[in-house]
């Protein structure tokens, strides 16, 4: 049930993201963005543009070039779009809540191998682009898909290695457990006491406190993961596989109508997946900073709830809404960050992209893993 609702919501969400991107680029470039599409003169800030896009894409002709492999040409966009949609399955939108005797968790599937699943799904998406380029019988497409394959598999390695630090800190691959572990705080200078003995002044241990988020425990891991996963998604500044100025449109040059639309959609759905993943692993997931779940349930249930005559169910429901809203705010912030990066940085050269991956981030992520491991053991977390 949750999965069906989620699928529909996600399907509806992707077009809205295209609107956000157009609007944000308009604001950043100091012009008036998409605002022409209207129904009877009503434009709603250009929000009808995504709708117009979908109708237009659906009613366009489906052109398959001569000499193309018709079967592969048809299934490539499906292979690209499906992994993007199903990656949502393991991202938790909220914690676990108890209503009466019933337990509700806001996640579709909650396997122990949650992050491994993301990793696997990410590699399947590579096939879509490679097959699309090869099946099109077009030189531009082939060049684009070759670039895409090399870039995506290279960054997949570093992406996998850059989050190992987080697994070491949280000791789990389960995304719900990771979010749960971040629903607390830690003392920033606590390590000084452990390593050098002695005690810190009370005001340091009292006020130098941060939420136990991945971004504070693994700042380098966060930067590397963000870079890698943006390169995985082939969005600017890593959009070499589809660089318009050299390769026409890269691997989907020969795609039209909704087949092109699926590639387009998968890219924007992945933007949301990336935002959800970074939120879960590095930004505390659904956790409200400094306010843990027990605290919210306890205060609302025993304070306001008892006063107004509501039961525990009310407290849990309230907590659920607060957590979901927090999660959405964080996701939107990360989406905004990705789009801001897209309109800020110019495209890299291909050798720079590959050098960044193999010569900078791969050694750095290995160093990060062992430094984190040593620190985890020394501090006895």
């Amino acid at each position, binding site marked *: 049930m949750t*999965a*069906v609702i*989620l*699928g529909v919501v996600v*399907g509806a969400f992707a077009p809205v993201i295209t609107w956000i991107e157009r609007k944000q680029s308009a604001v950043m470039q100091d012009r008036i963005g998409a605002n022409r599409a209207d129904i009877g003169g009503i434009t709603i800030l250009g929000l009808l543009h995504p709708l117009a896009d979908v109708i237009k*894409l*659906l*009613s*366009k*002709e*489906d*052109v*398959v*070039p*001569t*000499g*193309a492999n018709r079967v592969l040409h048809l299934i490539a966009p*499906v292979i690209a*779009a*499906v992994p993007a*949609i*199903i990656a*949502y399955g*393991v991202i938790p939108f909220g914690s676990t809540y108890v209503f009466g005797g019933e337990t509700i968790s806001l996640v*579709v*599937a909650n*396997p122990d191998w949650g992050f*491994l*699943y993301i990793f696997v799904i990410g590699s399947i998406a590579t096939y879509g682009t490679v097959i699309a380029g*090869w099946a*099109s*019988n*077009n*030189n*531009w*497409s*082939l060049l684009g898909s070759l670039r895409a*394959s090399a870039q995506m*598999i*290279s960054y997949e*390695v570093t992406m*996998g*290695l850059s989050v*190992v630090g987080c*697994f*070491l800190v949280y*000791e789990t*691959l389960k995304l719900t457990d990771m979010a749960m572990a971040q629903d607390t705080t830690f003392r920033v200078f606590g390590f000084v006491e452990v390593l050098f003995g002695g005690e810190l002044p009370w005001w340091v241990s009292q006020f130098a406190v941060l939420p136990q988020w991945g971004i504070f425990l693994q700042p380098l891991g966060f930067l590397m993961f963000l870079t890698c996963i943006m390169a995985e998604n082939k969005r600017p500044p890593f959009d070499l596989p589809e660089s318009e100025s050299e390769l026409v449109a890269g691997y989907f*040059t020969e795609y039209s109508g*909704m*087949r092109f639309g*699926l590639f387009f959609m998968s890219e924007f759905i992945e933007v949301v997946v990336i935002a959800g993943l970074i939120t879960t692993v590095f930004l505390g997931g659904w956790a409200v900073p400094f306010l843990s779940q027990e605290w919210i349930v306890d205060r609302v249930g025993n304070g306001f709830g008892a006063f107004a005559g509501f039961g525990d169910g009310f407290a849990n429901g309230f907590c659920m809404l607060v957590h979901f809203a927090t999660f959405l705010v964080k996701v939107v912030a990360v989406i905004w960050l990705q789009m801001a990066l897209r309109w800020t940085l110019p495209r890299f050269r*291909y050798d720079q992209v590959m050098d960044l991956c*193999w010569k900078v981030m791969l*050694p750095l992520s290995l160093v990060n893993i*062992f430094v984190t*491991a*040593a620190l985890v*053991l020394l501090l006895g*977390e």
Partner: protein
Amino acid sequence: MLADFTGILVILIVGIAVAVGMLCVHLVLGPRRQFRAKNEPFECGESQIVSPHRRYAVKFYLVAILFVIFDVEAIFFYPWAAVFTEIGWFGFVAMAVFTVPLAVGLLYEWMKGGLDW
């Protein structure tokens, strides 16, 4: 355990239904007016001179081989990280021993110029 798979199976079905459904609607709504020139692969207005299905630069194969090596390594890191405090310093040293040959291999590849584009 099985419940994990049901959730994923359901979302997989939903995902495939969304993708295939969109293609089917497109198939119904889209016009079909095809002629030879329209169906030619795009080549900046010229007809295609060389077929794209020929040999590629060996670089890409090299990257793929490197990917296999390091991806397997990355997968070994995952279970290790999940039980790390239980195995402690022994696990740390064991992983260091496992990583050194790979790091040397990377260094060798680097020196040989295998990572240059």
